[in-house]
């Protein structure tokens, strides 16, 4: 028979909130003298008496203590009795303290055509000091996310990651879906704002590879101050109609980029003229799904060329 037993008013409490604890010693706890003084110890603090100790009708001794402000995220609470010239620990309870989760923010998602996965990430918000589970929730929807159709499997991130990826088989690429993050711990639940998106509208597009046409093979007429370029769309995204823009800049201090917009996503021979002959030029290209909605790809790695 265990002599002492600690009960906490609540095992997990908000940091700074009070908590009440009671320790009861059953009368038939043979080894103890009749009405032992029940003592308390927090972590490795001093032994201290409770706020009050009373004898219950059934002979049980009960001591009550109130901790006005819990300020440790984890506190071991001991219940002890004097024993000869030392003390005996009768029970121990673990008091946890932290904060309810704040709403996760900055939820954003990208569809990766190479892995066929929709990857979302978010900011978890301030530390809660408590085990907090994040779940990426979503459901399919029609007509810009007004109605909920069948919900999609919850996506549970790997340990302590603030990112989750939904596999292709759970996705309808050309249908709207509502997606948000839920955070939950012992002190509460919170949700991020909801996103309404169509996976194909958030494809992570890679830029084409910009190549200089080999001027020497007189494939292209040599014209002073001109450059001949070619590019092909990034293979996995080739099926998407895209529009591209090219930027170029002479490698001179303080030079600005010049932009050429509304270019096709594939070009075998593109002549760029009006360039000064001397300096080397840096050229980059990027594309975006168009006319359907999409995200700009990053700029391609810079091509360094000297005009003819």
């Amino acid at each position, binding site marked *: 028979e265990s002599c002492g037993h600690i009960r906490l008013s609540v095992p997990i409490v908000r940091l700074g909130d009070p908590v009440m604890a009671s320790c009861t010693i059953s009368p038939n706890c043979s080894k103890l003298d009749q009405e032992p003084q029940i003592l308390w110890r927090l972590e490795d603090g001093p032994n201290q008496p409770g706020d009050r100790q009373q004898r219950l009708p059934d002979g049980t001794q009960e001591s009550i203590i109130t901790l006005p402000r819990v300020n440790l995220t984890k506190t071991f609470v001991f219940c002890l009795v004097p024993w000869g010239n030392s003390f005996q620990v009768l029970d121990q309870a673990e008091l946890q303290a932290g904060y309810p989760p704040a709403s996760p923010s900055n939820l954003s998602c990208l569809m990766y055509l190479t892995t*066929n996965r929709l990857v979302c990430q978010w900011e978890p918000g301030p530390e809660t000091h408590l085990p907090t589970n994040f779940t990426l929730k979503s459901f399919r929807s*029609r007509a810009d996310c007004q109605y909920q159709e069948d919900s999609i499997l919850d996506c549970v991130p790997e340990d302590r990651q603030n990112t989750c990826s939904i596999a*292709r*088989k759970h*996705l*309808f*690429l*050309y*249908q709207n879906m509502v997606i948000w993050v839920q955070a939950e711990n012992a002190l509460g639940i919170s949700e991020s704002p909801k996103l309404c998106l169509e996976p*194909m509208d958030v494809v992570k597009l890679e830029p084409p590879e910009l190549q200089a046409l080999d001027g020497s093979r007189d494939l292209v007429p040599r014209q002073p101050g001109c450059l001949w370029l070619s590019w092909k769309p990034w293979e996995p995204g*080739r*099926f*998407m*109609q895209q529009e591209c823009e090219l930027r170029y800049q002479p490698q001179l201090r303080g030079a600005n980029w010049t932009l050429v917009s509304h270019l096709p996503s594939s070009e075998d021979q593109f002549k760029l003229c009006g360039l000064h002959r001397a300096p080397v030029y840096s050229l980059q290209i990027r594309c975006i799904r168009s*006319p*359907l909605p999409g995200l700009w790809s990053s700029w391609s790695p810079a091509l360094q060329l000297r005009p003819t």
Partner: protein
Amino acid sequence: PLPLPRSFLLKSLEQVRKIQAGNSVLLEQLCATYKLCHPEELVLLGHSLGIPQASLSRCSSQAQQLTKCLSQLHGGLFLYQGLLQALAGISPELAPTLDALQLDVANFATTIWQQMESLGVAPTVQPTQGAMPTFTSAFQRRAGGVLATSHLQRFLETAHCALKHLVQP
């Protein structure tokens, strides 16, 4: 004729191109992995296995009756979705390509169905999958794969023309 939203047509064209890309990868893999590179040499086997083909007769530009064309397009996609499912287990190497293709075809069928619903021309009951061929050997499943994907390629070419015609009448 029925007002088909431009975004629906553009999305459908993109889905056709996406499926065509996946489909030709599957055809290449079947050829490279199993040396089954000539669908025309499998016509006889196709008859005995009962590999179905879907028609898009109502989508040819002359006789284009839009509702019937959409319905044929959905019916064909639904058929090929079932056929690709029947090919599951063809081989571990091809499984990723086959799974992605089957999901793309299913998604495209849904896009068409939802548009028919929006236009109020969708049948009240979703179609149910007819009997699919059964394959009793690995070879039959691979040959069935070659035939199904080559039929699907022709089906998609016709669909692409029809949709192109609708986008720029």
